[in-house]
């Protein structure tokens, strides 16, 4: 398999230790790119066997796929591709775990089921059951439950899908037409953000289409479930890559990154891939779209109360799509906001899809380190361009007892934009 050829380039220099978040926490070889690659290499050389040594699968699963090692590796070894190939192979032998069946094929593959789950979560929150969980008596015994509970934001809204029509047209003539890809996490956990972005973009003259899309497929890809990835991509492609749409945008960096790689998702050497490849450039990070296509027009913005904002780079935005300056430019353009950089803004938050649930301990430690950096920056607001990172960092902040608002950069911009304005 071609992805395994990557292994050959690793000459064990160890430089990846300096950026790998899991190594940073554990300081153990098994949790570094070098170690992970070594094990997959031995497996490929026939020294080990998935069946006889299932420990390898566990260690391959510990990788966040954050790609920090890849961009810092002097030999540019694509550790993420090696890990994905290994997961694919393992899945072929073992099949999906119960957790993966429930979460991925069971829930994420079906929007309606996710939305029903959202109703339950809101019920749980409103009923006050949450307060019992946090009460002193139960606290110690229920640590794990509390960890999971911390992911649930207070005042969770109903799914965004039900709050928005399928087409939103601006008041005047449309500057261009765009698809707003409403991903799973945005739909269930990010309704406030989605509404704000949609309103803002429409107020700037964008005609937005919100087709009923399926999951982007990235969560399934990380487990190696290639068949499901292909099925989901095939379902979404005709909905979003239509001739009359100029751009495809989303508030979720993970979805954006996935959509921009749909030729790989659908199967790299297939005719479908050939067809979709020329259209992939239409997928655009929403921050970049605002900066490049709409313009920031800082003179028209109302000042917001003086606030220090720090920005967390999502892996899929920064290393996946090369988004670095646009979100920062947005923050700097809003009067009243000051951008303060945190240490290691570019290191993974540990959310990594469902990593927070499959690896609660490591994920929690990575989040805690990130929260310390956020705190040290002196910021009083955190800006993030991804609902998954928002969920993870929101939970990390809550566990640390911090009340920092977590907002999308465009949400901040929207707050300063003249209401109902039209250009």
């Amino acid at each position, binding site marked *: 398999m071609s992805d395994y050829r990557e292994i*050959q380039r690793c000459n064990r220099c*160890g430089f990846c230790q300096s950026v790998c978040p899991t190594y940073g926490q554990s300081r153990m070889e098994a949790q570094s790119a070098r170690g992970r690659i070594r094990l997959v290499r031995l497996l490929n050389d026939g020294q080990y066997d998935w069946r006889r040594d299932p420990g390898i699968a566990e260690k391959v699963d510990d990788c966040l796929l954050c790609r920090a090692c890849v961009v810092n590796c002097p*030999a540019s070894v694509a550790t993420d591709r090696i890990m994905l190939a290994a997961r694919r192979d393992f899945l072929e032998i073992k099949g999906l775990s119960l957790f993966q069946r429930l979460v991925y094929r069971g829930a994420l593959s079906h929007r309606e089921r996710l939305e029903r789950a959202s109703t339950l979560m809101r019920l749980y929150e409103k009923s006050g059951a949450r307060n019992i969980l946090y009460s002193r008596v139960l606290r110690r015994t229920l640590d794990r439950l509390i960890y999971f509970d911390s992911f649930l934001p207070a005042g969770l809204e109903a799914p965004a899908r039900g709050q928005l029509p399928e087409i939103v047209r601006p008041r005047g003539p449309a500057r261009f037409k765009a698809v707003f890809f409403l991903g799973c996490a945005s739909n269930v956990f990010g309704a406030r953000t989605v509404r704000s972005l949609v309103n803002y973009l429409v107020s700037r003259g964008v005609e937005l289409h919100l087709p009923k899309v399926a999951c982007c497929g990235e969560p399934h890809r990380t487990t190696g479930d290639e068949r499901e990835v292909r099925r989901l991509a095939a379902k979404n492609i005709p909905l979003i890559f239509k001739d009359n749409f100029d751009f495809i945008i989303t508030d979720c960096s993970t979805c954006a990154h996935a959509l921009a790689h749909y030729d790989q998702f659908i199967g790299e050497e297939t005719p479908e891939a050939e067809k979709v490849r020329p259209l992939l450039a239409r997928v655009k990070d929403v921050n970049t779209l605002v900066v490049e296509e709409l313009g920031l027009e800082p003179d028209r913005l109302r000042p917001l109360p003086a606030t220090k904002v720090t920005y967390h780079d999502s892996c899929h935005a920064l290393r996946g799509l090369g988004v670095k300056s646009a979100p920062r430019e947005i923050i700097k353009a809003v009067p009243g906001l000051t951008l303060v950089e945190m240490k290691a803004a570019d290191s993974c938050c540990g959310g990594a899809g469902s990593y927070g649930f499959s690896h609660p301990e490591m994920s929690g430690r990575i989040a805690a380190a990130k929260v310390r950096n956020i705190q040290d920056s002196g910021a009083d607001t955190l800006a993030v361009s991804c609902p998954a990172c928002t969920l993870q960092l929101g939970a990390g902040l809550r566990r640390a007892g911090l009340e920092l608002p977590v907002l999308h950069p465009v949400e901040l911009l929207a707050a300063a934009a003249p209401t109902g304005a039209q250009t």
Partner: protein
Amino acid sequence: MKTGPAPVYGGSAVSGNQGESMLNRDFIKEAGQIVGRDHCLGGILDIELYSYDSSPFIHPPELVILPGTVEELRQIVRLAARHQAPLTPRGAGTSLSGGAVARHGGVVLAVTRLNRVLELDLLAETVLVESGLVNLDLQNYLEPYGYMFPPDPASQKAATLAGNIAENAGGIKGVKYGITKHHVLGLELVLADGALVRTGALAERAAAPDSTGLFMASEGALALVSKALLKITPLPRDYRTISAVFDDLGKSGRAVSEIISAGILPTALEIMDHQLIVALEDYLHLGFPLDAEAMLLIEIDGLGPELDRQMKAVFEICEKVGAAGVSLARDLAERDQLWLARRSGNGAMGRIKPATIVQDVTVPIDQLPAMLSRVQEISRRHEVTIVQMAHAGDGNLHPHLLYDPYDQAEYQRCLEAGHEIFDDALKAGGALTGEHGIGLEKIEFMDKQFSREELEFMSEIKKILDPEGRLNPGKVLPAHYLPGPGGEVSA
């Protein structure tokens, strides 16, 4: 006693190596109680993961222990002494000479979790650290205070201070600021029997003889370093970074000798050959000239007019020697990119061939141009790819011999070429290693570099401090000077 497989790159360390264990169950149980079960690893996969470092040598330990505190470290060493277990100390595992692999089994004792900065004293300009702290983490810690720790080996992103001390690492700034031993004021050591001693400025009575130097470059074979008191240096106020391009490798070497003999002391003087330039351009896209035979990176630091005078002299020398182009880095970003490129040299070799033997010979500075050309000639004659980079300012060459791990014949040719390089360097009045250590790689050459008396002296010291030869067994000294596993000497 078990002996590991021959030093080859590819295979599993564990399979085909079923010797008798020297560690009994009580030892493993007690070790687990000291450091916690998560940090006492005996599973087959963890053994694999601690069988290698950045060198071609692969040998499996029987147990991997990662203490979380100095006290735990000490208890483990005591326990090992009771059970007579061999200990191979390990930092980040970036040794290029096999220093961190357990040649004779036993325990790998990794200090990566001992990574705290304990005390910063800006008045005395010192910092006290745990030995597992990563060099670059220390630099980042010091920077806001306007200080640096000058030794900066290319592996500084990952390498620990324990490793820097064990190998007496130099690095890019070595030519002006000296190497690790010039910046270590005192050590806290755990001896083979578990005793804790402090040396140099860390000793209670500073008037006692300072034995700190004894442990510099001792490769973990005399004691384990738990803490180090380091001298820190103010960051240079201003600097200039110059790159010069040559159509011949020897010319770049001549430029180096001339710069030094003109009395200029650059912070860094680094030579990179054609193949390295191509590999690094492929990685970083800096616009390096792909047709150049050699590039010389020069950095000078200091203050205003003096700095500009030196810069002018450097430009003139490069031009006189026949540089095809000389240029000044425009800004900080460009400078950082140039150094990132140089530091990435070793890892970037993976772009050319999957496996590397890195050599580390030093020669007197006036012999540098000739030595660079000799290595080129050896490369041609043995038909092996040798990529050259050098800390040229102190005559420290780093020829990288590349091979395919599945091609045994090519690996053999590399070994032969390597031996010839060692011989030539010694003939030129040089040394086997500038900073990578003897490890497993260069033991057989020790007899050539040192006299019998010198080797016996080293052997005596080893026998005093580690009579059972349990600390990094089988390393540094040839077997007939070494006690314990892999050695032929009784204490």
